[in-house]
Structures are given as C-alpha cells and as structure tokens.
C-alpha cells in the first residue's frame, strides 16, 4: 500500500505553514502517530491558524477524518467550511453514507448528518438509509437516537406512517432486540398521537395483545416484560389488569392447566423455561400494590426469587421485602 504524498511535499500546499502539536516535545502519554497522520494534522493546525475555508480544506479534513473519525475539531471545521464556500450538501451527505457504515460507532458521523439534515430537510430518504445500516448492526445506539430525532424533529405524518411495520420486521428478526422495543414505545406512546392512532383505547389494547403474544412465544425476555410494565405505568393502569395473563408464567410447566385458546391471555409456548422470574416479580408487584394481607404473599414471592429463581439479585429481593414490610407497618 502506498502512502499518499505528504502535504509537506505537495507544491499546492507550500503556502501553508504546518504547526507541530507540542511546543516542547516531551508530553506525558504521547501517542505514536503514523507519519501520515502527523503530516495531515500539522497542516490542519496551520489551516486553523489562518482561518482558511476552501475546497482544499475539505480534502484535508476528509483525509484526517478517514484516519481518525473521532477528530471532532476536523468535523467542526469541515462543517463551517461547507457553509462558508457554499458547498453542495447533498454531495456531502453521499460521502457520509460511506463513512457512516465504516465508522458506525463514532458520534461525529451521525452528528454531522444531523447538521446536514437541518439544512437539507429531506428526512424520508434518511429513514431508508438508516434501515440499511441496521443490517450491519441492529442495536447501534447512535443510529437509533438519530432516527428518533429525525422523526420527532420533523414530526411529519408521512414519516411516522411506516414506523410500526419497520419495528415489527426488526422484532421478527430478533424478538430480544431491546432497541427495537424502545423504538416501539417511542413511536406509539412517547411522541404524540400519529395519523390513524387517534383511538387511544384501541391502541393500548393492540399493544397489550402484541406484547402478550411476544411473552407467550419467549417468556424469559426482559425487553418484553419491561415493555408491558412501561405501557401499563404510562397509562396509570394497575398491573392487576393482566393478572390472568401473567399467572401461568409463575408456575412450572407441569402446573399449566390452560388448554383452551384465550386470545387475551396466550399461554406459555411449549419450549418455554418456567417458572419465569420476570412473571414472579410482576406477580409480587401486583400483591404489593394491593397492600394489606397481600403484602405477605408478595414477600413470599420475593423470597422465592432470592432463594431459587433469581439468586443473583438476592440482595435486591431482600430490599423489596424490607420495603414491603415497612409499608404495611406504617
């Protein structure tokens, strides 16, 4: 692999005075940069000093970004340069398509896109691009928060229209993808009421059935239990609303009695590992909310979690027992 010609050897850069990083060359924890990186950043510091904003600054910053995509100063200076020389931002976005895939986990590649989008204002195509990147990493945090920002910021019914199907596809591919569950909550409950979702009672019912069926298929899925807790709390509905559904999941496979199909209360799948600790926890919460004598039933369940079904969290369950008993004493 040949290294690109150094800026120091390129006549078209001879008017720039390179600036070394350190005035005295003896810092603690120095990084052993490659010559290529040292050369490029020396010239970048020279450019910053004169404040030049030009086409060649775009080349230089792209070079640095490819060597170190976390160089936020290069990104920042690049953005200012794009605006200063009235560069074509759609071309820039195209370049970003490539960089985003290569450097998926870098804050700056996603933030730069956001700055561009604030000027270009074409969010629909962005949603398509994001969907592509999820094929590489379906849980990438920056990508998800960028998608949520796009939706909430532009807040256009056309944009929201495809989100539920989009989430369903991702959950179909991996029912344990918590990023997708969070996106579902964000889309349905936390971003206002979208077109076709005006009947909130119906929406709530739909979501309850969705999450129950998901739990029925894979009971030991923390994401789904967090979702059902989340939607009940969001609507201030007591957990006891779903007692009938949860109860079989607190029992062992041998103790299952349901043989008729109840669409509101789908039973655990045949392959399920039971009893399910999340269900026992949920049931204890139902008892705790009832208070009074039920609190003792709750403490029994917490004890069973600490001693048998969720030993790793023993201290937490003991804490719940103490808090529960304190509540009925006062």
């Amino acid at each position, binding site marked *: 692999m040949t290294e690109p010609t150094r800026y120091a050897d390129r006549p078209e850069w001879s008017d720039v005075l390179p600036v070394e990083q350190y005035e005295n060359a003896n810092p603690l924890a120095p990084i*052993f940069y490659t010559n290529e990186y040292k050369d490029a950043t020396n010239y970048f510091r020279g450019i910053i000093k004169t404040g030049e904003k030009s086409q060649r600054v775009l080349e230089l910053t792209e070079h640095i970004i490819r060597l170190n995509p976390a160089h936020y100063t290069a990104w920042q200076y690049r953005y200012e340069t794009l605006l200063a020389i009235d560069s074509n931002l759609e071309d820039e976005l195209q370049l970003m398509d490539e960089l985003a895939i290569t450097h998926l986990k870098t804050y700056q590649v996603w933030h730069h896109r956001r700055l561009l989008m604030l000027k270009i204002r074409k969010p629909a195509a962005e949603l398509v691009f994001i969907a592509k990147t999820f094929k590489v990493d379906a849980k990438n945090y920056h990508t998800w928060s960028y998608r949520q920002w796009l939706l909430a910021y532009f807040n256009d019914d056309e944009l929201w229209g495809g989100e539920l199907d989009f989430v369903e596809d991702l959950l179909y591919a991996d029912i344990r993808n918590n990023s997708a569950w969070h996106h579902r909550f964000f889309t349905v409950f936390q971003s206002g009421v979208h077109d076709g979702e005006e009947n909130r009672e119906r929406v709530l019912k739909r979501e309850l059935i969705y999450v129950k069926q998901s739990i029925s298929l894979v009971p030991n899925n923390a994401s789904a239990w967090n979702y059902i807790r989340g939607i009940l709390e969001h609507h201030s509905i007591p957990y006891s609303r779903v007692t009938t559904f949860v109860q079989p999941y607190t029992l062992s496979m041998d103790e299952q009695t349901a043989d008729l199909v109840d669409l509101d209360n789908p039973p655990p799948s045949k392959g399920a*590992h039971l009893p399910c600790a999340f269900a026992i926890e949920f049931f204890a919460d139902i008892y705790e909310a009832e208070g009074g004598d039920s609190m003792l039933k709750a403490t029994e369940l917490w004890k069973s979690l600490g001693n048998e079904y969720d030993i790793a969290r023993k201290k937490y369950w003991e804490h719940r027992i103490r808090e529960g008993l304190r509540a009925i004493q006062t």
Partner: protein
Amino acid sequence: MVQIDDNYPTPTSVTQRSTVALLVKPSPPSSSSESTPIQSGILDTNLHLGYLGRHLLQGLPARYTSQDASQPWLLFWSLQSLSLLKVELDQRNKTKAAEGILAMQNSTEGGFGGGPGQAAHLLPTYAAVCSLAIVGAPDPSTPDLESPWTLIDRRALYMFFLSLKHPDGSFRVSSNGEVDVRGVYCLLAVAKLLNMMTEELIKGTRDWVRGCQTYEGGFASAAIGIGEGQWAPLGEAHGGYTFCALAAWVLLELDFPSSSAEKKVNLKNLRRWLVQMQGGEDELCGFRGRTNKLVDGCYSWWVGGCFELLDILEGRDGARKEDVIWNPEGLQEYILYAAQHPAGGLRDKPPKQVLHTRNSYMYHTLYNLAGLSTAQYACQSRPTSTSASTLTPSSDSLDPTSSRSSSEAPSLASSTSASSTQAQPSSTPRTTPSSPTPSALTLNATDPLFNLTKTHAEAMIKWFREPGREVYW
C-alpha cells in the same frame, strides 16, 4: 436471565451464549505455586502499574490515534487508575502533566480541547479539570501563584459553558456539537469542582435530565421536547448515560434542591433497572449496559457506581450492609477473573479465542478499577482517606521514539511487596468488615460524583471556595 432462550434462539441469545462460554474462572495449573495472580482471582497490581507507567511515561501505540481528540482523557484514565491503586506521580511528572493539560485550554473559546489547538469541548474539559485535581494541587510550601489551579481561566470557562446552552436547559458538547447527557454531566461536575454552579447556568437543566429517563428506568442519551412539558428520550436506557444523568441529577439536588412540587426522577424504576443490568453467576456477575446486551467491564463503574450516587441522593452516609441492593462480591469476580489482561491493564471481556488478542485499553482499565473500588466499598466499610506512594520513571529519557521498543516497566519508588498489594474477591461477606485480610489490597475510595478520590475532590472544591477566589461572572 437472558441465557434462558426458551428454545427460541435469535441473534441476541446466540451471541449471549457464545459470550457466556468465555466467562469462566481460569483453572489454576496443577501445582498451585505456578498459578498467576489472575488465575487465582487476585488483582495483579504490579502488572497493571507497569502497564499504566509504560503508557504514561513512554507513550501509546498507534492504535490510540483514535483517541487523539481525547488526550485529556488518556491522562485522566491513567492518573485516576494510579490514584485508585494508591500510587501518585513524582513532582516532576505531575508538573509535566499539569503543563500539558493547561496547554489544552483553548484560549479563544475558553473550554479545554481534546489536544493542543483542538476546539473546546465539554468532555475533555471534565477530563482536564479532574486530571488537574490529581496532579495540580498547590504545594503548601510554595506560593499559590505557582499552582496550576490558579492558571485555569474560570471566567472564560464559564462563558464557554453559557455559550453552549440551549433554551430547553440542555447543552451542546461544543460549538455546533451534539446535545447529550454526557456533556451535561461533565459541565456540572466541573462547575462543582471549580465553584461555578449558578442558577443562571443550571436553569431548566434538571427538567431536561429527568426527561431522559425511559420507561425501563434507566436514562437515554438525550431528550427532545414534544410539548406541554413532555419529553421523548432519544435512545434506549443505557448504563453510561444513566450514570451521567444520575450524577447530574445528584449534583443539581445537592446545590439546588428541587421543591416538593417539581417532578422527580423515578427512583424505584431506576433501582430495578440498575439491578437488572447485573449478570448472573454464568456471566461472572458482570454488568451489561442495556437490556439484552452483553456484559462489559466498563459498566462495572457506569452501572456499579450508580448505587453510591443513590446513597448520596437518599442521604445514606456510607454503606450499611442492609442498604446494599446489588451483588458487589459477584462483580469483583468478573473484574478479577474476566477483565484482567495477562499483559497488564483491564479489558471489556476475554477474547473469543485464546490466540485472538483483545486489547486492554486505558478506558477499560480505569472503569474496571473504579468498579472494583465501589464493590469493595459496598462489601466492607473502609477508610476513605487517600494514601499514595510515588511512581517515578526508570529513566530521564522519555523520548517516545527512543523508548518505544523498551518493554521495561518503570520502577516503583514504593517498596510495596506483591503480597501486600493483592486484592482478592471477597466472595463471602466479611465478618470483621473493618479489618480486611492482610493479603488484600483495598483500593482507594472514589467519589462517585466525579470519579476522583475523595481527598482529591474535596481539596479542589475547598480551594476554589476560599475567600478571595470568587469569580464574579
């Protein structure tokens, strides 16, 4: 609990299964005298000191170019790791470190940058000020004028902070930069250390931080207003952001307690989410950062450190055993068995194959050690005063190019023998909590608000509050 796949494998459960297979306690060689400290689950202090000293004094390999915009962080991670291990630099290297950091305060913008000549940014500003807390304390025998602390331009820093503020109470991390809760935490921690907390600065911030809490109980990276005082969190609950949000919340509550009418963080949901992040025995009780993701050594601090923040918020002074709601004994097993790298430093998790290298990083070294410190703190009451021995370079020549090939670790001025500097996992609760076994190294306590030793944090806070040091903005 995710390891139970209900006979329904998906990408998440398949990755989980293969990771669990890596998380085994190493079996010691047949002859017990040959087992290494790591095989025995002992913190190999000298190995890690060698790693830290080598990087600090000789330099960092080229792969650290990705951290070129995080130079104050590289210093902070290594200096604070040394502090936790009860070692400090000699005065000459402290001065050198402080001079390097002060050269990173951007004279035009006011904040510190990721390196000399880089743009000011909230994250390196935190790392720079915390590093100065470790190496810049005024020497009682010399006049204050010579202390690096006097050279921090606080007025410029304050103006920088204000320039980043959004009307909704949040802050950009830099000019045109992203908004997230890391930046808000870094800003508040620095404002607290340098006595710059004002109503003007923090107006609206509390509500924005609260808006980052998700339905799961942990916090997201940021929040966007959706009208009528409602917030939508951007991203799912995450260990790193949760630490930043909770620490920010506690810093605000300490200086500007919220009224009873104001909305609060949901602590019950937060506690539940935090304990759910801890893995079971088969994951050596490490912490994950999000629901249904893998355990990683850095969350030992980002999640493990949150419990001490809750102690502060809820007015518990020190750890009483019955107040501990997580498994600190278990976490020590993860850090000591899975996170120690045989070549020094600590890592996120063991490599996929024996011959496959998985580097340790300065970042993971600090956050594993800080997690170990908080775990020890939760297991036993212990003194919180800082003690330290001195780390000196083996040679005066620190020219990175000439010392690059040298693998020699810097010598330690202290004469601590290996046997007196080893920490073992306390797998059973100690019966006499105040007297650890002679062979156990208790790390220095770290103040969860800053991740500085209490001595360093308190000294800086006190110094900037002394009469005559007020800055009128």
